[in-house]
């Protein structure tokens, strides 16, 4: 097991820069998610790790071995990485067993070992009864598990996932998330997981890299990412919540209820931004300090989503256990908030 590190990696196609000066250090055994909207460069990063793409600048190191740099490129077939593709990439002319065993066949594994290791890999994904089927005879979830077994059969140090759940329906996705977590616990391999789905990333990863336009926005644990987004763009992208205008304030601080009221009441400026998560808005408060008009009330099963318009025109998202009349005015208090660095490209 070795540390995987990207040092100031850039990638351009023609004059378009897709990945810009990215540095990440992935510890052995970590489950890392690369998260971002489409076109943010996350797939390119994965393809550079796999060796399908060269790097334009910077380098990628695995332990003390250089995988890629502007001058050197270790071909994919010499990297011993596993990968699970969005399209599964199962070879349709091979049975489940042949698919899973192919990497061993290439390594010229002897017959006994081959049998045993394929068996073990199929056991992990619980597909031993299907080993003589062709991929076309399997369901979507089963195909994904075959792909998983194939990626781990050579016991690689690093397994890469390229949006592996994008083609599955919601129900199957949840059960596959559980499979992936178990899989990570059992193998202990380093995993790099590309997704555009923040819920998926939060559920699976130890550490998340949020990317936008080829640049790293934030690199932290899911909990920190949620509670302490590094700027306004990340705050918008991750989780639910409202961004309120307020007096200019230093970014990245946790505000108490009193701080929030102070900042919102001071009308001298509105260049500051604070993030308020809906669970931190209390609509049963009776203090007369803050109030809002109910604009929308949506039933979500376990609760109601309430959208209120504050006196300065900002919209505040809150949860409530009962429905509220649209147009009515509510007293409210905000228990805590997180101040934000303004994003550079935001101009209002």
């Amino acid at each position, binding site marked *: 097991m070795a540390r995987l590190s990207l040092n100031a990696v850039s990638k351009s196609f023609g004059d378009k820069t897709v990945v810009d000066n990215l540095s990440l250090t992935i510890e052995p055994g970590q489950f890392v998610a690369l998260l971002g909207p489409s076109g943010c460069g996350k797939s390119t990063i994965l393809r550079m790790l*796999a060796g399908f793409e060269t790097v334009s600048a910077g380098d990628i190191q695995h332990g003390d071995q250089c995988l890629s740099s502007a001058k050197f490129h270790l071909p994919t*077939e010499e990297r011993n990485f596993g990968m699970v593709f969005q399209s599964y990439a*199962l*070879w349709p002319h091979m049975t489940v067993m042949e698919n899973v065993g192919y990497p061993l066949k290439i390594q010229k594994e002897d017959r006994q070992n081959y049998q045993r290791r394929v068996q073990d890999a199929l056991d992990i994904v619980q597909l031993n009864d299907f080993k003589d089927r062709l991929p076309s005879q399997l369901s979507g979830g089963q195909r994904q598990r075959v792909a998983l077994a194939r990626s781990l059969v050579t016991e690689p140090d690093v397994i890469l996932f390229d949006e592996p759940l994008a083609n599955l329906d919601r129900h199957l996705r949840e059960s596959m998330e559980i499979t992936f977590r178990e899989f990570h616990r059992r193998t202990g391999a380093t995993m790099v997981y590309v997704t555009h789905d923040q819920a998926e990333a939060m559920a699976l990863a130890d550490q998340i890299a949020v990317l936008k336009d080829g640049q790293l926005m934030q690199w932290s644990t899911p909990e920190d990412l949620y509670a302490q987004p590094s700027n306004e763009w990340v705050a918008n992208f991750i989780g639910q919540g409202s961004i309120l205008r307020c007096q200019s304030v230093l970014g990245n601080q946790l505000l108490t209820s009193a701080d929030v009221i102070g900042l919102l009441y001071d009308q001298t400026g509105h260049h500051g931004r604070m993030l308020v998560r809906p669970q931190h808005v209390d609509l049963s408060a009776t203090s007369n300090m803050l109030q809002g008009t109910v604009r929308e009330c949506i039933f979500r099963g376990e609760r109601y989503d309430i959208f209120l318009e504050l006196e300065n025109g900002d919209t505040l998202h809150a949860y409530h256990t009962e429905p509220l009349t649209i147009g009515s005015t509510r007293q409210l208090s905000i228990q805590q908030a997180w101040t934000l660095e303004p994003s550079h490209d935001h101009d209002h």
Partner: protein
Amino acid sequence: MYLRNTDSQLRWLSFSIFLLIALLSLLPSVRLIMEALKGVQFDVQSPLSEVMRSSQTWTAFRNSFYTSGLGTLIAVVLGAGFAFIVTLTNIRARAIWVFLFMLPMMIPPQVTALSWLQLFGPASPILNTFGVAPALGSPNPMYSAEGIALLLGIQNAPLVFLALRTQLLCLPQDLIEAAKVARASQEAIWIDIILPLTRGALIAGAALAFVSSLGNFGIPAMLGIPVNYLVLPTLIYQKMAGFGQGMLSEVAGLSMLISFLVLGGMIMQQWLQQRSEYALVGHSSSHMSFRLGKWRLPTETALGLILLMILVVPCIALVVSSFVPALGMPLNSQTFTVSAYIEMLANQGVTARAFSNSLLLAGAASVVLMCLCLPLSYILLKLPLKVRILVTSLIEVPYAIPGIVLAIAFILLFARPLPILGVSIYGSMSIIFLAYLSCFLSVCLKPIYSAMSQMDKALEEAAQLAGANAIQRLVHIILPLTAPAFFAGAILVFLISVNELTVSALLWSAGNETLGVLIFNLDESGDTVLASAISVLVVLLVAALMACLSLLAPRLPKGVIPWHDSV
């Protein structure tokens, strides 16, 4: 540089492949252009300017346009009609219709021409058998511009048919259902949905038919030369036979002219097609289909009659004329004779030789090209798009330019002994073989290339991650997944080259006759009965080959054989 990601195995492979393409595709054309331009700088008396000022050239030019244009029109009407009916309706025995309609394309043009000649005219055995032949001395209506156009149309209709049918099979049923929900009438569905979506394929098919007509040699040679109605390819052939001074430069000039026409047509087709192409979104398992209801039987009858006219009757004429003792005699129990067949098989060593020559050439060409196209398409797909388009266009050139032009280019290339080696391949079978490789590379490449480009790239990447090197990936993953396309490529090359006439008409020499040349020579020397007998055998050979493949088809993956599909 472009292949930096790949290993040295691949780099060597690509280097040698590109060298080969340069030799096969580029060299002949370059040699031709050099020869055509050789005389230019001297004076106005140069061969090229003479060709350009000769009224003969422009007459042939006009004739070429007229016969090809009319032929294309016929091909489009026939091909599109059949494609729409056979593909979009619930007609019975679809596979047989497709098979029969594809047959004219596979029958060599000189045989088609011969069979139609036997059908009409004063010497027609069929008409004579029924006693309705025109008076002796009256002209055969097939010896005319319209006769040539008709046969060009029939010969090339399958090109339009195939292009359109492929596109129609991709049209999902729900497009029609959506239109019906929007309360579109039957006519509106045709005008607003089906036609716009198939326009690209129709244009592509028509352009292919036109280009193929322009370059066709067999039909205008058999129908035009006897009445001195010359089109560009036959004019070149006659000039070659003439052996005048500066002849080579003259034919090179003519060849340039026809090449420009053809290449211009191809470029225009690609441009038009790109403009009218729509990407079809979404997938649907069922393709479009209309119910004919009470019109089914009349439609089937009409299709049957058309096929009877364009395929069966000429073939019968051919068969009949192979069983009479001499042309012009009616066929009855007294005149029936198999002497032509006996003579052909027993006495004429040249027939057996031509058969074995053609089989050898076609077999070798298809196997060699199949082996060549695996690494070639693989490497092509690794190249940046612009380079890829350039290389595929280069490969396309020898096939696109008419066979007669390619033959001239090969004569120019190999008239002198090879440098360094000092051996001359001119006048041997090798020159025909090389010309076939050059000519049919794109025929073989197309199905293979398209199969490979449609393959999910992740399939190969997954193998790469598994540690497989380039050769292993080719053999383990790509070859098995694209095997049908390889069969298709090789079969197409074999079928086309076994009957090939145009290239070998100029390159053959005593002892190296091909089947095409044999039939052509026999007909030219008036041995029509014998020519008919051989043609019958050729048609049987083609039909048998196609039928064998159809029988095999269930064991082959879908799409291998153009005239067979499981729909």
